[in-house]
């Protein structure tokens, strides 16, 4: 999310994406496009990242915003699917699920990327990420209904980790 | 009169506290200077207010320019002025004493001390029940903090009890307050009184029940019988200047009781119940306090029981509810506050020079300044026992006279027996501390000028109150008269709009 257009820009507008997000959120909250609110929103969108900059680790840059959008869409759809699946599993009393732990070897290494991956895994079909190794080499996943461990790992790799990697160009 | 004068007793300590907390935290000399100056100014201010109040007029200050009963109103009558002045003098003694070194034992002493004063003054000035709650909390939290100043084991142990009990007290306060608001629909005490008489009977009963609960809460602060057990260990554990300031804390409870009794129960049917309660609990407190004093094996504990004994006397007298008794009570209140405060300070000085024995009543090494401390102790003890020619004797004379002995033989017997008990306890303490010493070297640091000044500031009350007994008595009689006629408050607050300091002016 780091803009990084020269020193000045990075000094005075360290994270344009964040600033944009904040402005949007502000306008969402105040539900108004009045000049006053716009101005205030701009000021906040500029000031808050400046104040909180020191709290941010160096961030990977978003290279492909469009891919990010697509990825988000995918994930949302998966979430709905996952929920239908899990709901059915919960509501049908006959079928007993076969839970299991899967150790997923990580390719991405940036904290933000790993976090996004872990969160995505948690939100999507029958999986909850449970632990990240201290050396970031793998991610332990609890699966509600485990059939094929390798297939699952491959699916996650293709569907989530690769796109994430592309988005941040690791 | 400057209309803002009324709020100054609250703002002055607040602003000085802010100054103290914001600047020069490390510079103790600066802190002391500011704190002393602020307290001196408070003494002057409250003296002025005392003088003002003596014209019998009740003054109000409408905060935020909102009229009563909607906004919060401060109220200055003789009683409030008296309590303010007493607090200021007591505080001056404590600050002087603390500035000799006690204040360096922990952080923020002076700032917290000023906030404590703010809480006390606010509680004395406010005419609004909820605002009273707020100021109670301020003064309580400040007192918790001060109690923990330079904290050690006994302080923490006693502090925990003190804090928990008071927190429960605060919860009960809110229930009582809610009940009173629910029944009367207002928070201003005078307005409450005004509405009460017009309410249907069931609301009156409910309000009365709420007020009874309020009395319990105040009795906790005032240290009435089943609720006082926390006091001795807490006061004995507190740092000397703080313990001395605490001498006024029980009086805040009593003050609140007097206010409620005068304003809310003045008209209602619950008065007899309240007075019965105060009367018997006061007497029982007195009896047990003297028993405690007789059994005390430490001067600080003894002093704490003297605080308790004075609380007992005050509560029982408050139960009498005659102007004479109220006036005598107020005279006694001023006397006992100053003297018990002085005793706590003295105990500290004595303890310092007695080596390991401290203030425990055992044979120990000779005091380094036995003569000086002995004389001071003598004066304090004479006043505390109620021997002539100091204020204690006059206070006792008056209290006894305010009661018809044949109607209430208990009071006379108990008060006289209590005097004897305190006499036995203090003469034993004095003879152990100053006479029964080991031969040999003395140790401990000498009394510092500031400490001496602090003690003298409080102790001077005893001869001065005796010397100027007549004007003082006149003032307290007028105060009691003002308390007995709460209608005047109503008249001044709601009857004549001009009486309201700033109400008539337009809102900005």
């Amino acid at each position, binding site marked *: 999310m780091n803009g990084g257009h020269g020193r000045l820009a990075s000094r005075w507008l360290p994270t344009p994406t964040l600033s944009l997000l904040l402005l949007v*959120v502000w306008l*969402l*909250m105040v*539900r108004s496009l009045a000049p006053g609110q716009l101005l205030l929103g701009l000021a906040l969108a500029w000031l808050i990242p400046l104040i909180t900059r020191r709290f941010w680790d160096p961030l990977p840059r978003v290279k492909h915003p469009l891919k990010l959008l697509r990825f988000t869409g995918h994930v949302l759809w998966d*979430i*709905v699917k*996952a*929920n239908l699946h*899990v*709901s059915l*599993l*919960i*509501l049908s009393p006959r079928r007993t*699920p*076969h*839970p*299991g*732990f*899967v*150790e997923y070897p990580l390719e991405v290494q940036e904290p933000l990327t790993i*976090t996004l991956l*872990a*969160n*995505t*895994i*948690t*939100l*999507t079909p*029958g999986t*909850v*990420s*449970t*632990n990240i*190794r*201290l050396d970031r080499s793998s991610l*332990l996943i*609890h*699966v*509600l209904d*485990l059939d094929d*461990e390798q297939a699952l790992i491959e699916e996650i790799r293709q569907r989530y980790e690769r796109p994430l990697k592309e988005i941040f160009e690791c | 009169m400057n209309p803002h004068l009324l709020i100054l007793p609250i703002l002055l300590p607040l602003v000085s506290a802010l100054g103290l907390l914001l600047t020069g935290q490390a510079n103790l000399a600066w802190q002391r200077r500011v704190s002393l100056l602020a307290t001196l100014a408070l003494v002057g201010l409250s003296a002025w207010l005392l003088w003002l109040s003596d014209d019998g007029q009740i003054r109000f200050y409408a905060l935020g320019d909102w009229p009563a009963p909607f906004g919060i109103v401060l109220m200055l009558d003789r009683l409030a002025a008296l309590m303010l002045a007493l607090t200021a003098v007591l505080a001056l003694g404590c600050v002087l004493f603390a500035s000799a070194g006690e204040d360096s034992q922990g952080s923020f002493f002076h700032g917290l001390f000023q906030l404590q004063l703010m809480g006390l003054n606010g509680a004395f000035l406010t005419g609004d029940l909820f605002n009273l709650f707020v100021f109670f909390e301020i003064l309580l939290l400040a007192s918790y903090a001060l109690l923990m100043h330079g904290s050690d084991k006994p302080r923490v142990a006693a502090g925990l009890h003190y804090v928990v009990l008071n927190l429960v007290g605060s919860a009960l306060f809110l229930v009582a307050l809610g009940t009173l608001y629910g029944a009367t629909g207002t928070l201003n005490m005078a307005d409450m009184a005004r509405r009460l008489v017009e309410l249907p009977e069931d609301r009156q009963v409910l309000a009365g029940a709420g007020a009874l609960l309020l009395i319990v809460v105040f009795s906790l602060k005032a240290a009435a019988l089943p609720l006082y057990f926390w006091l001795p260990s807490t006061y004995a554990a507190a740092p000397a200047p703080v313990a001395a300031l605490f001498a006024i804390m029980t009086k805040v409870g009593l003050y609140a009781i007097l206010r409620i009794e005068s304003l809310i129960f003045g008209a209602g049917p619950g008065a007899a119940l309240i007075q019965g309660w105060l009367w018997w609990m006061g007497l029982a407190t007195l009896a047990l306090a003297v028993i405690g004093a007789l059994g005390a094996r430490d001067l600080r504990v003894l002093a704490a029981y003297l605080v308790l004994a004075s609380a007992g006397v005050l509560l029982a007298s408050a139960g009498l509810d005659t102007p004479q008794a109220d006036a005598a009570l107020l005279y006694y209140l001023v006397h006992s506050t100053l003297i018990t405060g002085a005793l706590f300070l003295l105990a500290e000085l004595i303890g310092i020079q007695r080596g390991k024995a401290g203030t425990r009543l055992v044979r120990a090494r000779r005091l380094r300044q036995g003569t000086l401390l002995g004389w001071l102790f003598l004066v304090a003890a004479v006043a505390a026992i109620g021997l002539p020619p100091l204020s204690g004797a006059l206070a006792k004379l008056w209290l006894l006279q305010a009661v018809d002995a044949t109607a209430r033989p208990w009071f006379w017997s108990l008060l006289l027996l209590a005097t004897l008990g305190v006499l036995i306890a203090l003469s034993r303490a004095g003879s152990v501390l100053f006479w029964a010493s080991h031969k040999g070297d003395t140790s401990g640091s000498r009394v510092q000028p500031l400490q001496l000044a602090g003690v003298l500031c409080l102790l001077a009350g005893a001869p001065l109150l005796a010397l100027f007994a007549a004007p003082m008595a006149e003032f307290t009689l007028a105060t009691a008269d003002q308390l007995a006629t709460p209608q005047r408050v109503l008249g001044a607050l709601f009857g004549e709009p001009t009486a309201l300091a700033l109400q008539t002016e337009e809102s900005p």
Partner: protein
Amino acid sequence: MTLYVLLEWVISFLLVAGGLFAFTGSLGMLQFKDFFMRLHGPTKGTTLGIGCILIASMLYFTVTQGDFHVQELLITLFLFITAPVTGHILAKTGLHMHLRFITGTRGATPEFLDEDVGQHRVERPPRPKRPKRRARARRWL
């Protein structure tokens, strides 16, 4: 007019679906046999359920009050940021605390997974039991 009817249908559907998702999420939490399985319901079902209800609310207010109401997105945003993290950390805690999982759980045994989990326990303090004998009679106060 038909738009409104349609929207009403959509809102109603979202509400009911949201309620159902939230319900199944909690039901899963109640039903499943071990902690890690119970975790699945709330992290997904409830989150999505609330999301649906929020969107329903958004639509409803936008329709009835005429102007644009999208604050609910903000809540959804917060939820979608925090819910998985909660799930993750809770699972981590569960692992750390040696919560048992039902027999038949497949895959890598987490005890051997990480330097972080699966350490030996400190000696477990005995749980005090209610004393058998009545304690010595005490005064009432």
